[in-house]
């Protein structure tokens, strides 16, 4: 039986960030990864923010396998055959330090893993953690892996095992997820020449664009779609809550094909060649679905702790920040030579004071709001496009009559009182 100071379960952004910091501080750290290498099974849409990775690994901007830096973010609100579009492009995002870059996680996490190894941590791939090991008094003292004689012991176990976190559930820190708390997202990597991407999206060099897609993108289900530019490919994906996929009886791949065929989307992908098809769950439950973050001998970080701000599509950055905070908590506990529940609860307090908690607290009602206000995913995108089409169509009809037609159509589909209430509540939820 081997003994380490810290066992990290899962080589994703949260686990690798914690492992890197702790290894650099001189602790013996082992990272257990079930894939062939860090990143082998890791998926996200593709936007990686500069913070806090550049704080953890300042060489990130220079060395990491980045795709394109994002200079423009667009939002498209789709109806069946139209799109209402807004966006923001800024040369501020062109300057260093760059705010955000697109990445392909299989490559990015591999790079991060190399950094962690160089810092002195041991990364053990192709190994599944089967269960946590506990002492008689209930505290977590290690993990059992799938390898022969695979019990490992440590002062602390950091559960960075992702959205399905078997460890957090097993340790009794969370209950089974509910289908409205998770979104199933699927994605395709579609290869296109760099020159085609640059022409279609209006960028040069390593500049890139992100487009978030609403409304018909999800066939009115709670969720979003996206198009992100990589160097020589675009990532196109869509996600919806499992609750809505269940209720509507829609297969995620069919939903993705529906999105790819939309008349505003298809021309961007024309001539492209699919290179990979991927699926992953996104924790959408927000603060109210966050598990207990610590117990004696164990901390929970990243997706395993539901740390995703879906409105701003922030996840990997919050995961890394939670890894930083977990590392801080472990170092503090080490000073006191005590890894009990009380000492490790300082991680909970660090999270509570961080932007992870603050931002998730700001949007804490978003999940239940969306559940109760599907109008924002079907009715309002339709009406918005109808209104825009009306006002932009020139014929023998006066603008005032067109406005009246818009109001009549809106009131036919939802009462003024309900619309006022919807938007008031929307403002209260995100404001």
């Amino acid at each position, binding site marked *: 039986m081997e003994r380490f100071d810290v066992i990290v379960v899962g080589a994703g952004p949260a686990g690798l960030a914690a492992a890197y910091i702790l290894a650099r501080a001189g602790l013996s750290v082992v990272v257990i990864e079930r894939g062939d290498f860090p990143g082998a*099974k890791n998926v996200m849409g593709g936007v990686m923010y500069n913070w806090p990775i550049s704080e953890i690994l300042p060489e990130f901007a220079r060395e990491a396998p980045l795709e394109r830096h994002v200079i423009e973010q667009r939002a498209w609100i789709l109806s069946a055959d139209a799109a209402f579009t807004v966006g923001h492009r800024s040369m501020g995002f062109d300057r260093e330090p760059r705010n955000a870059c697109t990445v392909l996680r*299989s490559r990015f996490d591999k790079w991060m893993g190399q950094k962690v190894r160089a810092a002195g941590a041991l990364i053990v791939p192709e*190994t599944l953690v089967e269960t946590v090991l506990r002492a008689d008094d209930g505290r977590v003292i290690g993990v059992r*892996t799938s390898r022969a004689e695979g019990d490992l012991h440590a002062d602390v176990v950091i559960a960075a095992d992702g959205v399905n976190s078997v460890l957090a559930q097993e340790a009794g820190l969370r209950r089974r997820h509910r289908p409205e708390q998770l979104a199933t997202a699927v994605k395709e990597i579609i290869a296109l020449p760099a020159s085609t991407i640059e022409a279609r999206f209006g960028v040069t060099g390593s500049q890139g664009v992100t487009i978030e897609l609403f409304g018909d993108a999800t066939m009115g289900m709670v969720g979003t779609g996206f198009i992100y530019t990589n160097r020589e490919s675009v990532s196109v994906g869509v996600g919806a809550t499992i609750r809505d996929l269940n209720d509507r009886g829609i297969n995620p791949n069919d939903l993705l094909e529906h999105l790819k065929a939309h008349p505003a989307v298809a021309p961007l992908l024309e001539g492209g060649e699919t290179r990979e*098809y991927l699926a992953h769950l996104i924790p959408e439950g927000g603060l109210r679905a966050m598990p207990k973050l610590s117990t004696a001998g164990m901390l929970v970080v990243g997706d395993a702790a539901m740390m995703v701000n879906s409105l701003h599509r922030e996840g990997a950055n919050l995961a890394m920040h939670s890894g930083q905070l977990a590392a801080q908590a472990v170092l503090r506990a080490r000073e006191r030579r005590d890894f009990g529940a009380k000492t490790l609860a300082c991680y909970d307090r660090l999270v509570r004071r961080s932007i992870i908690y603050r931002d998730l607290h700001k949007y804490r009602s978003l999940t239940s709001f969306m559940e109760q206000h599907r109008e924002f995913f079907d009715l309002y995108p339709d009406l918005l496009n109808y209104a825009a089409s009306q006002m932009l169509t020139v014929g023998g009809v006066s603008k005032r009559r067109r406005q009246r037609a818009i109001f009549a159509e809106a009131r036919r589909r939802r009462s003024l009182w309900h619309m006022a209430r919807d938007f008031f509540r929307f403002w209260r939820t995100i404001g």
Partner: protein
Amino acid sequence: MKKLSLEEKLFLVSFRPDRESHLWIKDPRVCLEKCTAKWCTFTCPVRTYRWDEDHITVFFEGCVECGTCRISCEFDNIGWRYPRGGFGVTFKYG
């Protein structure tokens, strides 16, 4: 662009399937007698689950390990774990 079938898309993904399935139906009677919706047969992004007359067949070899089925099943009737270390899906791009 050329539309690929789901099967064609899965040819693009590398899998190393284990001999035994990491997914199983806990009680086939629940599928037959209680479950009318059969949500798992369409919510799975790679269509791992198929209804064959009176039971669910599990095509675990093409599973991308997302976890949708476990949450989708309203009877909590899908036995779910990750494949053993070194087995299952490997993404080239991610």
